[in-house]
């Protein structure tokens, strides 16, 4: 008897175990993410004092920073280097012979490895919660919808990474692509600075991209900056990005794979 998605589940479990084996990475994740979180807290505590900016007071900003820590830890936590390496060294040719869909297999591996970053996100969040006591979600429904938007981050993060990794079919270095992607995600997601503080043209530009759903969407829902209908709209937009980027990746793959030249036999 064959179970549906059995190969993908197996790949996800292997990837998860592979990531979990590197326990030192958890510590590094907590230190790096934790330091960004503490710097963010220090900056905004200093800037907001008893006032507010673009509707964010110190209490709201505490929750915003913790949520951005969680979402970025998850988004950056997936194992992305292996696929790039396989494309760069030509081993992707072996993957083409395997009886499993390439994109679905990579998605399973990536999401499996993202799950491995949950402990880092959990440890950091609990620490931040104890230290800074951010406010609870605006309502129980807002909390549930925040969780949905964070769940959608798993496929969305994979697709953004996967699309950028496919560029390795044309370039010789993955580091450059990764560097560009992480810079863009950090800025346009609202991790570096909330989008609400940006001028309107820059906000409009950001919302033309999938990146705001990494941080701005979950935090806006959590803090009640959008009502239930607005929250559902944001989640629908996020889901549309998930579907759209999946299709875009399929199209790009069809062109990209033509770059592979297999020598010898």
């Amino acid at each position: 008897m064959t179970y549906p998605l059995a190969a993908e589940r197996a790949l996800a479990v292997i990837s998860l175990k592979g990531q979990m084996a590197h326990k030192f990475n958890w510590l590094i994740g907590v230190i790096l993410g934790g330091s960004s979180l503490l710097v963010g807290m220090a900056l905004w505590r200093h800037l907001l004092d008893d006032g507010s900016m673009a509707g964010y007071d110190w209490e709201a900003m505490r929750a915003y920073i913790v949520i951005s820590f969680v979402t970025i830890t998850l988004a950056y936590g997936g194992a992305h280097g292996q696929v790039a390496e396989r494309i760069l060294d030509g081993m992707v040719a072996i993957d083409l012979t395997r009886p499993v869909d390439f994109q679905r297999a990579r998605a399973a591996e990536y999401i499996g490895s993202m799950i491995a970053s949950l402990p880092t996100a959990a440890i950091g969040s609990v620490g931040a919660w104890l230290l800074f006591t951010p406010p609870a979600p605006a309502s129980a429904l807002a909390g549930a919808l925040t969780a949905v938007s964070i769940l959608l981050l798993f496929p969305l993060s994979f697709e953004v990474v996967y699309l950028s990794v496919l560029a390795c079919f044309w370039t010789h270095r993955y580091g450059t692509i990764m560097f560009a992607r992480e810079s863009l995600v950090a800025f346009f997601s609202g991790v570096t600075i909330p989008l609400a503080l940006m001028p309107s043209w820059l906000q409009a530009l950001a919302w033309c991209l999938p990146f705001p759903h990494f941080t701005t969407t979950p935090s806006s829902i959590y803090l009640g900056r959008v009502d239930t209908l607005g929250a559902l709209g944001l989640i629908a937009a996020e889901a549309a990005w998930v579907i759209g980027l999946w299709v875009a990746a399929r199209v790009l793959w069809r062109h990209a794979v033509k770059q592979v030249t297999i020598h010898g036999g």
Partner: protein
Amino acid sequence: MRHTAAVYRHEMIAHVRSALEYPTEFWIMVAVGALSQALQFAFITVLFGNITAVAGWSYHEVLILVGFLSLSTALAGLFWDGIWGLGSMVLNGGMDYFITRPAPVILQVASHHLDLHSIGGATLGIAMAAYGWVGAGLGLAQIPVGLILLACAVVIQSALQTTLCAINFWIKGHMPVFAWVAQDLQNDTMRFPLTMYPTLVRQIATWALPFAFASFIPVQILTGRASPWWAIGILAAVVVNVVVAGLVCRAGLRSYDSAGS
């Protein structure tokens, strides 16, 4: 000394030539390095669109701080980037090759790679620092002082990275975890005035890890916020960091036992 300088110069020229063999790749890397610093510039500009000062520092003063940090980090990446590969060389025995050659081992390691992103990073760093410099009303007369302080900052950064990467002589691994964490902490923390942080953070970033001597204190001197006498502290930080890096590397090389087969 002349021989050592010649080895270093030849290595760097060879890297530049090899990078220019792939012009598209080269320009992509430069552009991406510039992009990340452009977003940093945008962040500071957006932030100051909502406030007037951070810990008493104006927009232009913060731009000098961020530009100075970006520039010193980029120059360290341009001239000393190979040091990040030390851990891999210890692990795979690649260090053997450098030990047998008649030139300082660490210098060979540090010059075996060139970070091309740094060219873009340095360009935007200069742009930020120059824009802040003019906006803050600093004169041309301060440029020589600024360049000397920048050179000190590059040496401090390179020496600190060397010390932290050399930990991989004992704690084996491809990734220079300690150097990486320190670099990330520096990029996160030092783009804002250190006075903004609690005392403990200020003390750690000044005395435990010499981040403050590589950006905050030099910019304080340039903007007149700190006495020029602090320059002695910067020179002392240069000497201490170089000596520590030398001692740690020497101990590391003595404990190095090759990868074997």
